[in-house]
């Protein structure tokens, strides 16, 4: 066994192993649990970092074995998987730090962190999966490992949200499985391959392939929260803040979006999907989701709910980018996978901080919070401007690249969608910012806690500050090697035959 085989396995095993140990730890082992958590997260970043370096320099990492004849289990690191793996490794560390601070003194921490690690292991598996079967395996594992996190609090509301979540995602999973099995019957086991398989397919297969594509999009669209399969997401925000942060930034919605990317690029192939007219349909769904999510977000009074609908909208940017069928559009979509992740996790961290420190859940309770919690509020402000797409932040790079990509291929209406979405984003984020910085506090905070000199616990304060900084850098230094934008360009250069 050489290192090139072991690396992807190690990357997966760090969180899997951590999860097993964490389950076994006694509830009281606070310090040991924190050490294991952080050590595993840091180790994973190192492993992924090495692989990113290697992939950039043309190395290949692959581990594969046959499970049953005709069905392979494949873990593979290519440029696209590193985009997602890098994002989740980085955000896992930050979310772990945040979760340690957030769940201080709350019950069932062993269970929580166990499933938390399992969830990240699934994400890593999804990133590294080399074929549809492996992908599906981890896709379902993700569903099962996130459910306990969503219902962690055990309240009726949480349980109801959890039930809803599991119904949506398991149904989606079943549809996806059906589609994968059908495809398997039609053409055999398919590894993800650059350019896909169907560029010169027998026209008689067009019918079934179209239906399979639609089914796959439904199956993946549930997690990616495409309208009309988004219903579970706003409810799932009853989960503890670190879970929401992870769910919205990396784990669940991104798994769906990432799956769509894999299927479009590396199973069907962008050109074939375009030729069969599949992308046109998908782009309309994505555009509708973008507008719908933003419009619904406008009417939410609960901060986390507003952020949840914003996620519905933002994740579809990724899907819309793919549909643009040109290098720039695809780059815009891919880079948003990372950008949306760091922006949204910042916002959810901040929402969690307001809730934990001040007991504030509703937007109209935020008056004057900027003065009380300047660090958190600066991070929130940056995240919000990033979402609006204000330059020079990460969201602007996405919007600019996608807009240019749309014009390049003559899909001018996409620019209009981007503009409308930005206006809606501004309409639901700017009033919050006004409250934070310019409104005077009129009532005492609903449930305030004090942490000495800092505005809140350092465990809660640093993660949003770091992600906000990353978000600024991702935009400001977009042209530097290894920036998300440069990496997305590399992916398109190498793996998307255009």
């Amino acid at each position, binding site marked *: 066994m050489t290192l090139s085989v072991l690396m992807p396995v190690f990357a997966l095993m760090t969180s899997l192993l951590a999860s097993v140990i964490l389950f076994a730890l006694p509830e009281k082992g606070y310090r040991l649990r924190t050490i294991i958590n952080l050590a595993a997260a840091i180790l994973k970043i190192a492993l992924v970092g090495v692989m990113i370096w290697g992939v950039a320099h043309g190395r290949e990492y692959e581990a594969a074995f046959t499970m049953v004849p005709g069905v392979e289990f494949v873990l593979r690191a290519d440029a696209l998987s590193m985009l997602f793996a890098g994002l989740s490794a980085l955000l896992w560390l930050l979310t772990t730090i945040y979760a340690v601070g957030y769940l201080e003194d709350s019950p069932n921490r062993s269970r929580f962190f166990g499933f938390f690690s399992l969830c990240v292991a699934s994400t890593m598996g999804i990133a590294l999966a080399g074929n549809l079967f492996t992908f599906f395996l981890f896709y379902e594992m993700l569903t099962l490992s996130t459910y306990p996190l969503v219902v962690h609090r055990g309240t009726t509301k949480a349980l109801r949200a959890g039930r809803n979540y599991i119904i949506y995602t398991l149904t989606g999973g079943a549809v996806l499985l059906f589609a994968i099995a059908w495809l398997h019957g039609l053409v055999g086991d398919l590894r993800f391959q650059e350019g896909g398989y169907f560029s010169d397919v027998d026209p008689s297969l067009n019918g079934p392939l179209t239906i399979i594509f639609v089914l796959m999009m439904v199956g993946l669209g549930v997690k990616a929260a495409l309208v009309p399969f988004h219903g579970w997401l706003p409810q799932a925000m009853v989960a503890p803040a670190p879970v929401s942060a992870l769910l919205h930034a990396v784990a669940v919605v991104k798994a769906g979006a990432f799956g769509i990317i894999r299927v479009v690029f590396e199973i069907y192939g962008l050109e074939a999907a375009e030729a069969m007219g599949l992308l046109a349909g998908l782009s309309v769904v994505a555009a509708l989701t973008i507008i719908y999510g933003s419009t619904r977000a406008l009417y939410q009074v609960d901060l986390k709910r507003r952020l949840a609908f914003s996620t519905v909208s933002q994740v579809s940017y990724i899907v819309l980018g793919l549909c643009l069928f040109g290098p720039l559009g695809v780059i815009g979509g891919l880079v948003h996978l990372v950008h949306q992740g760091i922006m949204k996790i910042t916002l959810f961290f901040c929402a969690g901080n307001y809730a934990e420190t001040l007991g504030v859940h509703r937007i109209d309770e935020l008056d004057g919070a900027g003065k009380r919690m300047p660090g958190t509020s600066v991070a929130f402000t940056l995240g919000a*401007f990033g979402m609006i797409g*204000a*330059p*020079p932040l990460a969201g*602007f*790079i996405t*919007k*600019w690249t996608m*807009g*240019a990509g749309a*014009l*390049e291929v003559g899909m001018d209406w996409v*620019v209009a969608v981007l*503009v409308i979405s*930005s*206006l809606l984003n*501004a309409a639901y984020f*700017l009033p919050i910012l*006004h409250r934070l*910085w*310019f409104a*005077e506090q009129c009532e005492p905070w609903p449930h305030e806690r004090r942490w000495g000199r800092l505005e809140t616990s350092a465990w809660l304060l640093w993660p949003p500050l770091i992600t906000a900084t990353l978000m600024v850098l991702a*935009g*400001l*230094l*977009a*042209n*530097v090697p290894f920036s998300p*934008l440069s990496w997305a360009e590399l992916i398109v250069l190498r793996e998307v035959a255009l």
Partner: protein
Amino acid sequence: MTLFSAPFVLLSVMLPLASMVLSCRTEWQRGYRYCLPLLPLPALLLGVAVEPGWWLELPGLLIGGLWGADDLRRAFLVLTAMLWLIGGVFAIGYLKDHHLRRFCVFWSLTLAGNLGLIISLDIASFYSFFALMTFAGYGLVVHEGTDEANRAGRVYLGMAVVGEMAILSGLLMAAQLAGSGLLANLPAAIAGADRQWLIMLLLLAGFGVKAGLPLLHFWLPLAHPVAPTPASAVLSGAMIKAGLLGWLVTLPFGEVSLPGWGNALVILGAVGSLGGALLGVRQQRPKAVLAYSSISQMGLMTLMVGAALANADYAGPLFAVMALYVLHHGLAKGSLFLSTAMALPTSRGGQWLLWLLIALPGLSLAGLPFTSGAASKLAMKELLKPDSFGFAMAPYLPTLMSAGAVATMLLVWRFLWVQRAVAGVGSNPAFMWLGWGLATASSLILFWWLPWPEAVPEKAWLSAMVYEAWSLFWPMLLATVIAALAWRSVKQR
């Protein structure tokens, strides 16, 4: 670009941004206030000392950064840096402790945006700084926290965001055609574009919001007056010019003659210049009168923009005149805004002197001979001769300019009238005296030694003014007669 000036370029933008460190601790906020005038210093040095034509490549920045300055940008840079410096000095005396730290942060951010957009040669940097200035400017507008300020802020922000989106779409379309991320390649691309009308419309409207183009101006008379006085001065003197600069660096000047757009802009400019005055004379508050005067003055600049679009050959010289006009109007308007906060001295002679010094920048706006306004107006008249332009509105240009001068003078009288009613007697903090004094001195005296664009026509020089005195003088006289009649009729009622 020499080794010596590169740090100045980066410092011009970084110093205001870095100064925000001072907001980290409450104890530092008083110190922060004293730093405000220092923040635009590197930019001022850059504008005054470094010959235009320099550039600095920043390949890692955004999607490839390029900063630099030409003759046009230099004039904008000098004005902007000077005005923010003066405003900073004034602010030290003016600001109360109420939310001082917050004000300083937004001041620094807005300043960084305003300076940065001027020296940006690439689209992404330019748009970034423009957006920074716009959004941070909101903090200055709503600073007082009154209902009126919040309302003005809402209108400001709403229109600004729509404007930003128009700019973004226009820039995207132009950049896609140009196949380049540099501003310098946009005009040629727009000149040859199929959907030229759409791109032009988006950019004209988008930047027009900032420049107070008629019908896009609604936020301006609300927002400029409610801001704290030093902020009003930079809003109306410097930031409003960013919209004009946006037009000048993106639209296809000198590439093609577009008489249709020229006609439209000349008409819009005339509407702005005369309509602004018409609405302005009905205002009760000095700062509101001044805000409308800014709309009126921007109308005259829009008129020049229209002429430059209509005749490609004249774009170059007109740019020089516009740069001169920007310098003149920025300094005069800055001085006028600052004077609204000045209390009158007790002695009668002192009062007269102060009124004279308050009135002079105003009279300069109207084109009083031997002032910066006369120089700019003469330069403008020299170029806007109907014979040089073939478009439909061309024959009316001299009439419009004279009518503009009458309108301006009327506004100046109105301003003095309402200012007299509200001005109290008392003492001013030393830094307010200093700031206002600097502004007035810059407008009346220092202006002649500032780096003017080289292409300004000879007529503008002092000696030539003697021969032109009457042509400058009669509109002012006419306006004075009208003002006197109006005053009498009000008094009799």
